[in-house]
């Protein structure tokens, strides 16, 4: 609605809060439940304020790529269900859905979190492919961070099913989990005017100037980046954003390690 909303939003930001009253460098309450979906090998039902996502992990049997005969695969797919927001419609994936799945995928793949070699069954012939499906149930902003966190927790809790004669028996799950070497945490920093903050609601997402998604692992090294938004960011913005992302990722890592 045209109410000079961006101008109005800047008044909130200059007061040190976002439109929902949360401080600029704070996340909304995060709560999650694991393995709520019985048909998936691992799942996570995550709520970040009013944002609600569900991630599910399935294992598939496949053949490896020729250049990596002893490595399994990983695939991440984000679906923006029309029920989650008035802006989403049924049909082929939109640019936003493709970006979300690629950025989440990049964070997990490039950090080397999943030990792909452990997914190999017969070298050069049979490997397991991990498929993570993320569904947005309700979109109140920051689907990227919520989706990345949900898929990571779902992966962490996924149990590998029993494999017999080269076929997967989905009815029986072994006690083995996917080996995670790292915990890549994705934090997106947004910039409106001169203000840098994390965890926007839909209100802020409509008017942001630029954003930078930063994925970090346990030893604070950056494994993936994604820049978005129409305006440019300066070197000092990048410094500010990485500092913010590092402190936030430490907090979140502590929370999911519990």
């Amino acid at each position, binding site marked *: 609605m045209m*109410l000079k909303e961006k101008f*109005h939003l800047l008044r909130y930001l200059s007061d040190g809060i976002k439109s929902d009253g949360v401080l600029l460098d704070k996340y909304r309450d995060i709560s999650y439940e694991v393995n709520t979906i019985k048909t998936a090998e691992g799942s996570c039902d995550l709520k970040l304020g009013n944002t609600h996502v569900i991630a599910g992990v399935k294992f598939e049997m496949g053949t490896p790529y020729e250049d990596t005969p002893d490595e399994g695969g990983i695939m991440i797919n984000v679906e923006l269900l029309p029920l989650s927001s008035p802006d989403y419609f049924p049909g082929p994936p939109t640019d936003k859905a493709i970006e979300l799945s690629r950025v989440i995928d990049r964070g997990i793949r490039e950090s080397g979190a999943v030990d792909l070699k452990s997914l190999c069954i017969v070298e050069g012939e049979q490997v397991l492919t991990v498929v993570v499906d993320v569904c947005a149930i309700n979109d109140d902003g920051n689907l990227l961070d919520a989706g990345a966190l949900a898929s990571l927790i779902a992966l962490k809790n996924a149990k590998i099913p029993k494999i017999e004669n080269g076929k997967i028996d989905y009815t029986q799950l072994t006690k083995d989990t996917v080996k995670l070497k790292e915990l890549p945490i994705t934090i997106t920093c947004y910039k409106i005017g001169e203000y840098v903050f994390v965890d926007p609601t839909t209100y802020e997402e409509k008017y942001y100037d630029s954003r930078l998604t930063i994925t970090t692992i346990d030893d604070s090294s950056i494994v993936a980046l994604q820049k978005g938004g129409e305006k440019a960011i300066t070197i000092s913005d990048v410094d500010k954003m990485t500092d913010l992302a590092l402190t936030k990722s430490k907090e979140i890592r502590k929370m999911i390690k519990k």
Partner: protein
Amino acid sequence: MIKFSEGSVVVPGEAVAEGKEYRIGQGFYRVGEKVFASRLGILRIKEEDNFIYLVPLTGVYNPREGDTVIGKIEDFHSLGWRIDLFCPYSAMLMVREVPGYVPAGELDKVFDIGDLVCVKITKVTNNKMIDVSMNGPGLFKLNEGRIIKISSQKIPRVIGKQGSMVNMLKDKTGCKVIVGKNGLIWTKGEPKTEIIVNEAIKMIEDLSHTSGLTDRVAEMLDKKMEEYNKNKG
């Protein structure tokens, strides 16, 4: 025989009463001897004249003459603007109903598509053609501020008896508040007090079926405003 007690929540299709001695009001229909609810709402019984009616909890806005509503400019014609009232029918705002000079052929300089206006419904015909007007006190274009949308059936609770609830919201927080009967509420004030008003309205929406709401909202507002003043000073 009524199967429910006064004030209980009924769902569509629920057999509420049996027998022809009851007169039924809005939200009910009769099949043979039985009376069924057609909407989700709260059952009200007037024992003295055997009358039952329903206070709906959900549903779309039904435009009525004299209501103050908040609408969005949808389109313009040669003589006025078409306004979306966030209900199944759109309204017409004629140029003569707008105070001040409107240059001919330049209607978009006054209100552009997407602008929000606070208007009063002057006429609703039988086939739901709605005329609105901006002549009157408290009717203007909304420039800044924040819009909250709630179910229009819950607006009476936000207004309260003779406006008690909305006046309390204004007095305690110092925000400007305009309540549109179609479910849109406009607030303007300091950012932090706007958030408090927001929370109060969410609370009213969630607890709209309970009694003693004004006292509880007052308590919550006092607590939040005390916190706000402490941090400010």
